[in-house]
């Protein structure tokens, strides 16, 4: 491995940042959700990079679990979005603002 680990970490950070910006700026619930997935993946990348650096499989295992949990999360999240859509005919998160002053 000739690439410095730091590059992978920077890449992971950039992807994470992009995912966060996506979460904050998009209005479509599904797109927000996808940005979240991007964030999760960025973190997985960082985990695997560290695992390679420290010669320890823990990082990979953790990334693996992260993927599993992300899968479960997507299932439930999409079910919620579908339920909300049924009620309001819209997936715009700005429309779901009952919990306010």
């Amino acid at each position: 491995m000739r690439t410095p680990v730091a590059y992978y970490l920077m890449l992971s950070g950039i992807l994470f940042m992009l995912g966060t910006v996506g979460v904050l700026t998009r209005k479509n619930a599904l797109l927000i959700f996808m940005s979240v997935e991007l964030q999760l993946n960025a973190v997985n990348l960082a985990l695997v990079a560290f695992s390679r650096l420290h010669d320890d499989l823990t990082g990979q295992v953790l990334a693996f679990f992260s993927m599993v949990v992300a899968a479960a999360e997507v299932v439930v999240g999409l079910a919620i979005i579908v339920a909300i859509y049924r009620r309001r005919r819209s997936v715009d998160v700005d429309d779901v603002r009952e919990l306010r002053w």
Partner: protein
Amino acid sequence: MPLDNVVFWVFAPISVASAIGMLLVRNAVHAALFLIVNFFCLAVFYLLLDAPFLFAVQIVVYAGAIMVLFLFVIMLLGVDSGVPVRERLIVQRPLAFALGAAFVVELFLAIRAGVGFTTKAPAVFTANEGGNTQAVAKVLFTQYFFPFEVTSVLLLVAAIAAMVLAHRKARAVTQAEIDAAAGEPAADEMPAYGSGTAAP
């Protein structure tokens, strides 16, 4: 030039570009496709980092199951057509970008202070003794057995939760309702649902 360097410098821009693309497009399906590209790049990176098992899992689970599920729902809800946006929260965009930039700068400084930009990983990944999959399996089923079992329960719960959340009491749909709902997307007239997971 070392091979992994080349591969890295080819796929890194692609992944960043696809991420940016995902952010910018209006159409949800396009965004999902961009994301899939991004996942593939990441899978390659796993491969570069001597994690072939995760490479496979990434493709199968993320790109193959999760994104497919996304696409299902996007199609189902018919929100693929993008609507022009008028931003209500004025401060949201600029602040998000500013914070993102700040975050990256932060990270840069942290990495420079921590790992350092010249550190390379050790030449041999001894943990991969006997093959990555075998090693992962060994660790997974011994040291991390309990989280493994818990995660399996979690998946079960998630499946049930999804079914409950998306369940709609089946009832006879009258002609009047069909007429009244004329023009609505067809999605809400499907009687039975099991949002079911494609993932195991």
